[in-house]
């Protein structure tokens, strides 16, 4: 057998999208002597959820517009109370300094005529949305900082598993090169997981495997790796489901269009929700309207002035999803004349939008010593892009401190041999199944059995199908390194599917609107379920769920405020009156 590629560093950051570059830069800033390696599956210049930029901050806590206390209260309510407020507060306090730092680095935020940030109101209660009409350059800005700080970068390396030493501390990771299939072992004192959402979980209604809302490179790699390393995951049953343009994976963009006067309407052109901020409660009303007699649902813009629409098009067709204009042109849709038909997305796991992720504290530490998580895969509810930057910073700085006190851990040779064999097996087979066939079937089953409204018997059947597909993994054939990468991603997706089913079955109530709406347990039950649902790999190697108490709040939430997000529906008799 050929020699493995091997490298030893202090801090290994896995994922070069949003949180990852920030974590690497901050670890280097904290201690320039450290060797910091940023591992990226694609290319750092254009990777992750913001490969084409971003059109705004969804959760900016800017003095004069919002306070950290207000923000913590808003997200506590938006996430039906199931939050660790310490993690929300760590984000909220670091939000404004991070905006200022990004501004100094050259990221452009919208400002008013006096030079103040032009924050807009989209959330139900507070004001937190800061547009970035020229946000297409953000990856370039990050790349310049990576270079400036001397962060080592390895592109086209796909991390497959984490390694621990005999004491259970993190000791490194295994990876394969997606161009050559070479097997790499990276030894590190600490590892920061920044691999993004599990975005390739459900199958888009179009049937196109890669037409997902999230960047499909984000297959749930980090959720799976953290799970196999024994870390706790949390809120997996709180799925990500988004309101999107039908057939196109772009968001409806009420965040962008709302401040200009656009809104979500039913087929009669009526508003049916008070607030377009994405929450499970909003998605349930969206779902009810879609499935009801007044559906489908539309983004209504045709009442706006021509110059306003041109401005909206300039933002929407140049940032985040620039092919949007091309999609509309193909269908003959013009915002001036037609409302845009909308639909709901496939399911995913993403704490950036909802709450499912690897459990972290306010320093981005997971429950495994030396292992950190930041960004969409770390459980800090509704964290979005700015949360990824803030938690990347917290993780990088804490990992740098941690490294100073640690000796490198030893990785057992047997662990390396076993992982090399597992990961490369599809290359040695000549007869069997192709990765994309197995993936298609798996993700269709995810839709059939896990898409809310959730039904107990269906989720149990889903688990039976997933077990059969687990056996199919042993028959996948990869004809080249690219297919080997896809074959490994199928195993990540399968782990996420099983986690999604088991966590959903465990929480026998409904919560978070559509995200966890169980037809056979339709009511919220705070007596038994005002807790986090945690999931981990038990001593016997089987997946296990358990309850974790919600930490006492540091910010009080009043009785009336608590249900604010449950009162989103506009009743037509109120409009008439």
């Amino acid at each position: 057998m050929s020699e493995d590629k091997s490298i030893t560093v202090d801090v290994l950051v896995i994922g070069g999208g949003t949180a990852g570059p920030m974590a690497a830069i901050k670890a280097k800033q904290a201690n320039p002597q450290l060797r910091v390696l940023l591992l990226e599956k694609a290319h750092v210049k254009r990777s992750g959820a913001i490969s084409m930029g971003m059109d705004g901050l969804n959760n900016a806590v800017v003095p004069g517009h919002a306070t950290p206390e207000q923000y913590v209260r808003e997200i506590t309510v938006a996430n039906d109370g199931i939050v660790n407020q310490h993690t929300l507060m760590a984000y909220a306090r670091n939000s404004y300094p991070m905006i200022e730092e990004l501004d100094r680095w050259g990221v452009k935020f919208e400002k008013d005529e006096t030079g103040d940030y032009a924050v807009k109101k989209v959330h139900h209660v507070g004001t937190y949305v800061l547009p970035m009409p020229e946000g297409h350059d953000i990856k370039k800005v990050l790349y310049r900082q990576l270079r400036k700080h001397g962060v080592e970068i390895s592109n086209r390396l796909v991390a497959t598993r984490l390694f621990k030493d005999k004491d259970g501390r993190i000791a490194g990771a295994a990876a394969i090169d997606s161009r050559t299939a070479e097997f790499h072992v990276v030894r590190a004192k600490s590892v920061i997981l920044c691999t993004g959402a599990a975005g390739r979980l459900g199958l888009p209604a179009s049937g196109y495997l890669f037409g997902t809302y999230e960047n499909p490179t984000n297959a749930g790699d980090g959720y799976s790796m953290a799970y196999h390393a024994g870390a706790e995951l949390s809120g997996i049953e709180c799925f990500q489901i988004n309101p999107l343009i039908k057939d196109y994976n772009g968001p409806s963009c009420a965040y962008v269009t709302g401040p200009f006067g656009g809104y979500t309407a039913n087929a009669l052109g009526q508003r049916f929700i008070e607030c377009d901020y994405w929450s499970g409660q909003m998605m349930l009303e969206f779902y009810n309207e879609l499935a009801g007699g007044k559906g489908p649902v539309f983004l209504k813009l045709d009442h706006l002035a021509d110059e306003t629409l041109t401005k909206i098009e300039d933002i929407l067709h140049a940032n985040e999803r620039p092919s949007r204009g091309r999609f509309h042109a193909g269908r003959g849709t013009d915002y001036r004349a037609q409302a845009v038909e909308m639909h709901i997305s496939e399911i995913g796991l993403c704490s950036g939008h909802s709450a499912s992720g690897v459990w972290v504290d306010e320093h981005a530490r997971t429950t495994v010593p030396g292992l950190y998580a930041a960004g969409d895969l770390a459980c800090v509810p509704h964290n979005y892009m700015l949360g990824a930057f803030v938690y990347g910073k917290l993780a990088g700085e804490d990992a740098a401190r941690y490294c100073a006190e640690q000796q490198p851990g030893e990785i057992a040779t047997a662990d390396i041999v076993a992982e090399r064999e597992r990961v490369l097996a599809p290359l040695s087979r000549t007869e069997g199944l192709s990765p994309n066939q197995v993936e298609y079937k798996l993700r269709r089953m995810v839709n059939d059995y896990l898409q809310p409204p959730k039904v107990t018997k269906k989720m149990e059947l889903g688990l039976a199908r997933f077990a059969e597909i687990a056996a199919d993994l042993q028959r996948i054939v990869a004809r080249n390194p690219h297919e080997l990468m896809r074959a490994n991603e199928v195993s990540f997706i399968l782990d996420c599917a099983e986690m999604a089913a088991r966590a959903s079955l465990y929480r026998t109530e409904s919560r978070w609107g559509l995200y966890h709406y169980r037809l056979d347990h339709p009511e919220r039950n705070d007596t038994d379920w005002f807790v986090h649902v945690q999931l981990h790999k038990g001593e016997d190697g089987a997946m296990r769920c358990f309850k974790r108490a919600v930490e006492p709040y540091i910010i009080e939430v009043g009785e009336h405020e608590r249900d604010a997000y449950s009162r989103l529906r506009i009743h037509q008799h109120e409009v008439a009156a």
Partner: protein
Amino acid sequence: MSTAWVSGSLPVSVDADKCIADKGCTICVDVCPLDVLEIDATSGKAVMRYDECWYCLPCEQDCPTGAIHVDIPYLLR
């Protein structure tokens, strides 16, 4: 593994006259987050090797000669 020849409409098309991959350019291949493009060994030009497109457009926007066009995949149009 048994194989079949399947024809289909692909989202990424490359204008071979404009493409300068034969002069050493690999920008489109480098920036694709899904790694679906490659330089064809015979023609020396960029081609779409895997129909796994997110129609995110870095390949088209970063191409120095404007050789690439990305269509919305047929299933979504």
